[in-house]
């Protein structure tokens, strides 16, 4: 029985109002006792038994930890030498062609780099990682093997999903058999990519994907980058298949770019249909000049859950990833103009699997006795403050154990 007592943590208690506006978050100082990975007691002054490990939080804010919901740990330059990507000449196919020679070449360093990435993501407060993992004609299931091994080494620190991802096209590169093999090896979700522009057979691509998911009793996470009505068409097809296969709540669309550029009435209908089958979405919050960002708050408020992911830290696709989810939420805040305490505060849920210390009406709902002890200590005074001022994480707690500590110098609290 492992016990951990967090002394003097700051918990959010309520929103403070000035006239009709929420202007601040009220917090209080508490002790939190954790036993066997779960919250056992939240109180003003808990006295530690002898067998309890005690951490003095020095009034740092306690917040729910992050879930990295879209990343590729199997193909990265992270942990290696600096290398800029090559210019794109044929859209997504540029990269698919490049991977045929690049990935076999990177095989000897793949495990080392994947592990460097996992360590970095843990240091940035993630206690769950969903990694897409290439399954293609050149690599076969070797990346699945590597990803599985690396993640298994960290299973006492994080939970994870491995998506069997046919990057070069399920049909286009003819890998149905390999995807099945990957699922048999322990991949937990069936992946996919652009049934139209990559596979050039929307119907058959989606049906095959769903067929595999049914056979292996697994969920689906499919990359769909296509724009407006094409994406819309693909989403509806996937919704239909989801219903038929009774896979409600088990299907994710990654990127889902079409949601950014559909006209409002069509968007409303589509979002409603997605919500009905509890389809969720992951996004990197892209801010490209030529692209819009999917309307994250609108989607969430209308029943489509949205989670963020970094996709890449630095690889042959892009060199700009940070793995820093507080930074990601800050980018989202700037993108959507979250500038007040309330809208900033509500953004935490996109990175934590929906968990926030206060609910929408400002009642304290986390942490409660029985909650999983996946949490962070941050040198800030409210979730809004942490997002706006990018306050640093000092401690990562996963399943009731302290798994990472970071020296950030003198604590500055509200002066960050």
């Amino acid at each position: 029985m492992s016990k951990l007592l967090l002394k003097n943590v700051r918990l959010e208690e309520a929103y403070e109002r000035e006239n009709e506006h929420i202007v601040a978050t009220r917090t209080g100082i508490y002790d939190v006792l954790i036993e066997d990975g779960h919250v056992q007691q939240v109180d003003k002054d808990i006295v530690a038994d002898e067998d309890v490990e005690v951490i003095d939080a020095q009034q740092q804010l306690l917040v729910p930890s992050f879930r990295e919901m879209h990343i590729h740990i199997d193909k990265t330059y992270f942990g290696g030498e600096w290398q800029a990507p090559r210019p794109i000449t044929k859209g997504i196919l540029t990269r698919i062609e490049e991977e045929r020679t690049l990935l076999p070449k990177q095989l000897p360093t793949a495990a080392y780099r994947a592990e460097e990435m996992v360590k970095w993501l843990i240091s940035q407060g993630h206690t769950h990682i969903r990694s897409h993992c290439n399954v293609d004609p050149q690599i076969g299931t070797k990346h699945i093997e590597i990803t599985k091994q690396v993640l298994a080494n960290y299973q006492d620190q994080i939970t994870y999903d491995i998506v069997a991802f046919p990057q070069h096209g399920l049909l286009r590169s003819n890998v149905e058999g390999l995807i099945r093999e990957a699922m048999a090896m322990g991949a937990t979700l069936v992946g996919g990519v652009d049934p139209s522009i990559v596979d050039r057979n929307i119907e058959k691509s989606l049906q095959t994907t769903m067929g595999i998911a049914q056979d292996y009793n697994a969920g689906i996470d499919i990359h769909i980058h296509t724009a407006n009505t094409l994406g819309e068409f693909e989403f509806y097809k996937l919704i239909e298949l989801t219903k038929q296969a009774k896979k409600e709540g088990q299907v994710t669309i990654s990127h889902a770019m079409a949601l950014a550029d559909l006209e409002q009435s069509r968007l409303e209908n589509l979002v409603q249909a997605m919500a009905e089958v509890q389809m969720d979405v992951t996004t990197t919050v892209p801010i490209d000049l030529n692209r819009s960002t999917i309307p994250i708050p609108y989607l969430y408020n209308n029943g489509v859950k949205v989670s963020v992911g970094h996709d890449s830290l630095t690889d042959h696709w892009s060199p700009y990833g940070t793995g820093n989810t507080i930074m990601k939420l800050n980018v989202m805040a700037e993108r959507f103009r979250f500038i007040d305490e309330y809208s900033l505060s509500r953004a935490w849920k996109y990175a934590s699997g929906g968990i926030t210390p206060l609910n929408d009406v400002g009642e304290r709902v986390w942490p409660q006795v029985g909650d999983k002890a996946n949490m962070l200590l941050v040198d800030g005074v409210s979730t809004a403050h942490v997002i706006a001022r990018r306050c640093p994480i000092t401690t990562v707690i996963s399943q009731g154990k302290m798994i990472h500590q970071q020296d950030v110098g003198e604590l500055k609290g509200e002066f960050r």
Partner: protein
Amino acid sequence: MKHWLTNVLLETGEYLKENDTVGTKVELFHLEITDGFISQIVPATDAIDSQNEVTDMKGKLLLPAFKEMHNHLDKTYLSLPWKACVPVKNLKERLDREAQELSVLATTGKQRAAAMIEKILKNGANHIRTHVNIDPYIGLKNLEGVLAALDDYKDVVTSEVIAFPQHGLLRDDVPKLLREALRNGATMIGGLDPAGIDNSIEPSLYEVMDIAQEFNVDVDIHLHDGGHVGYYTIDKWIDIVEDAKYQGRTAISHAFSLGDVSIMEQHKIADRLAQQQVKIMSTVPFDLRRLIPPIELLTEHGVDVHFGCDGFYDSWSPNGSGDILEKATTFADISRKLDERSIRQTLKYITSGVTPLDANGQKVWPNVKDEASFVFFDAVSSAEVIARKPSNRVVMSKGKFIN
């Protein structure tokens, strides 16, 4: 005072990597600094015979110090306890709220400005162009605080201080106050949305130019007005610059309207901006409701474009970091710069155009007699610095290390 910086990594050219992509060639050098300037550059294989101070830079990459070209040192909440913005319905309400707060904030002006300068400097910028509110509510109070803070850093930070009519130019005694500010330490004259705020485009622009000529100072006008009213305002300003022979002495900040018009109109005005040497200052916002000016098109036409962090963590926005490098990273990211060469060229927007390599990959910086103002990084090329933003940096301004 002589000082050797040994084992400094300099970019010296380009080469083709094994994988067929362009890489940046780097070599180690020793740099001798004398009284704030570079006095010798020798290969690291040379022995240095010196009685003087030596600092081993251990292979860190050398980049030119950055320039922060659009800031509001007077507005920030830095050094005060956390405070988010209060939601408002429109710009007028935001300005009203700011007005209510101004006199309270004025009492901590120097302290807050100093916190901002410190942040900017440690991130590698040793020049700050700041706008300072001159308005009917606080008069010259903010100017006093900002000047006092800048004075404390005068050995390592150069600055331009703009008398900025945030609450409108053509009202109350503002023109008189602006003149007073210019007599009391402000070094440039500002302006703000002649249509949106002053509701009088030409008189507002002429007043700005009149004051500029009267005091023989440069101009930097905030222009948020979007679409064709903003476009016309810039076009008209170019006329005024031409008539006043004020080429090279004026800038338009934000200039969102340039992103709102057709490509043809963008080309047309870019030519005029280049002819009259009107600079554009951008804070590279990526708010969904904003289009930024076409920075690359402007650059291709020869318009000088500079980045700034803007005011941040203030009554307008609680976000922002005070790291000008992050603005270059953001621009490279959102304009999809992917290869070594195109990423590298983004550096010029935060260094007033100074880059180690030119567009063709030829080494052009640093040279003997250049000012010894640098940022050192653990990196192997300026492209890596921009893309990966290494967190450890060492800053030197005019030959002095900043701790």
